[in-house]
């Protein structure tokens, strides 16, 4: 059986499942992060008076967009795929299929939705003259590739462990916001007190938040070495995640 064809089937099914029965269907995919962005923009720009430091700094909204959308894809992919095996318990016990596909489908659908949203919003901001470098948009989309690998690695590991320890998804619900605020998504590295800056390197998303901005807004430096390291980390996480998944795969049906 062709794994690619089956995966595409499950991705389509996943996309349909998400929006089946909702009034505006696929529109929600775009609407939801837009509303989220509006809330954040209002709170940070008008209440906290947040400004991006620097002389030729971008506006706060494009600054937020460049990092928030990739984060949404990353976090949602992990959180949703953690229960992917559990949700498909009926399928796992009755039909022979490579179980990775169930996780891959969820991660793919999350990324598809959010990359599409990212492109649309970036394009809109570019048209509105908000300092988005549209010529660099394809490169920014390319950066989603290592991010996808990283998310998939975590997703495989979490989905496999969740089968055995059902507390994981609760824990992730607490852990992911921590990771979000621990990465320079809402703020710039420069505004962080010296003492804490070292910690940013420990957060796997720091690189992505800063590099998306460097590519799309020209804010900050694009560092090829960090890029290579990030690709290496993503590959390593994917490898370990997949190994863990394979290791536990024969025992899923016993614990579902």
């Amino acid at each position, binding site marked *: *059986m062709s794994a690619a064809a089956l995966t595409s089937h499950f991705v389509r*099914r996943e996309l349909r499942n998400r929006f089946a029965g909702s009034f505006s269907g696929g529109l929600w995919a775009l609407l939801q992060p837009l509303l989220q962005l509006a809330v954040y923009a209002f709170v940070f720009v008008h209440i906290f008076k947040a400004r991006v430091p620097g002389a030729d700094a971008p506006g706060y909204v494009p600054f937020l967009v460049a990092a928030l959308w990739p984060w949404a894809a990353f976090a949602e992919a992990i959180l949703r795929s953690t229960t992917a095996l559990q949700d498909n318990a*009926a399928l796992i016990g009755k*039909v*022979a299929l490579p179980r990775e596909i169930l996780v891959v489908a969820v991660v793919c659908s999350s990324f598809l939705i959010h990359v599409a949203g990212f492109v649309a919003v970036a394009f809109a901001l570019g048209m509105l003259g908000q300092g988005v470098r549209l010529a660099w948009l394809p490169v920014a989309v390319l950066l989603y590739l290592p991010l996808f690998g990283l998310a998939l690695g975590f997703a495989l590991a979490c989905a496999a462990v969740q089968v055995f*320890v059902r507390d994981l998804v609760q824990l992730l619900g607490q852990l992911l916001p921590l990771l979000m605020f621990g990465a320079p998504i809402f703020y710039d590295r420069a505004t962080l007190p010296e003492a804490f800056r070292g910690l940013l390197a420990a957060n796997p998303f720091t690189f992505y938040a800063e590099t998306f901005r460097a590519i799309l807004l020209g804010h900050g430096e694009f560092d090829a070495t960090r890029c290579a390291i990030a690709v290496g980390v993503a590959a390593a996480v994917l490898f370990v995640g997949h190994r863990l998944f394979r290791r*536990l795969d024969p025992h899923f049906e016993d614990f579902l």
Partner: protein
Amino acid sequence: MNAPLIEARGLGKSYPQVHRSGDRLRALGRLLFSRADPDRISVLRDVDLRVERGESLGLVGANGAGKSTLLKLLTGVLTPTTGSVTVNGTIGALLELGAGFHPEYSGRDNIVMAAALHGLEGEELQRRLPGMVEFADIGRYIDEPVKHYSSGMVVRLGFAVVASLRPDLLVTDEVLAVGDESFQKKCIRWMQDYLDGGGTLILVSHSMYHVQKLCRQACWLRDGAVAMSGDVFEVTQAYLAWHERKDGADAERAGARHDVEFSVVDVRLGEGTVAPLLQPGDDLCVRARIRSRDGRDPQVAIGVVRADGTPVYGLASDMEGQSLRRVGEDEYACALVFERLPLLPGSYLVRVHPMDPEGVRVFDTMERPFTVRGSTREFGLVRLAHRWDERGGLG
């Protein structure tokens, strides 16, 4: 052609015992860091199975014997704890009612999904889809969500997909039972056609009729191990006999009478003391000795029942004006020959009851088993004498 289509060696499956949520964490740790086996419940042990291309195998066994688990191991849905399965071909499986169907989706969408799981995609799928819909034959329900289906419709849908795929090996698990009469016939017809065309079948069924009709080989699973395998007739008869004995033993406990005025000393069938094996048409000789406590001449009732207690035939000596021969101080004997026994293959019992001289009250009971062997496909207990009238039927 040399390699078997599917071969299992030393196949076993056991489940971990998980009672508390803490057990899950420990199990995870064990799986990740060591291979020490925790407490496990074994559901299948050491099963060897070999099915060649073109064969048809019936799996029989009581509930909980491990039949479904075995099928799931063979189809790769479950991972064996011990042993291995080698498959050289495509497998189409109808394992459980509605397995893999999404209740929210329409029948048509689910057919597409199920076909995709079997590796059917794109144009090929579009070409075959009308055929599948037609085979399922559930009318406008095909575009309704599966959650509104009856169980029969779900089976129709599942079978339609498999029928269209024509896999090298078809594995079905008692799913036909919920289809209605005409659909069952359609499926049986299809399966026979499939077998004639060189298909291979593994069938789980509690209907010995289906098993005998479709399969040449059979395998009997008892408590997770192979109890017997071989020719379908021998295996199914042994399996049914086991059931009959089990039921008979249950019925026996219900009531045995202990009135000692007349008692059975001994009953022998045929020549020896072991349970005889007969072919249909053999003679069966029953010899009995009866003790009479106060020296009155007893009568005797002799009956044949199937091993589950279903009566086949019975008679009493006083009906035919017979009296028993006195062979000792208080012992009487008789011998009865059933000539050219018309019983169909199965396990049976001869029951002997002494009766009072008036032939009114029944006292003791003694049973002796015997078995009729054979490979006929007739149904029921006895062969009724018959002939086909050459002049034809009603018209």
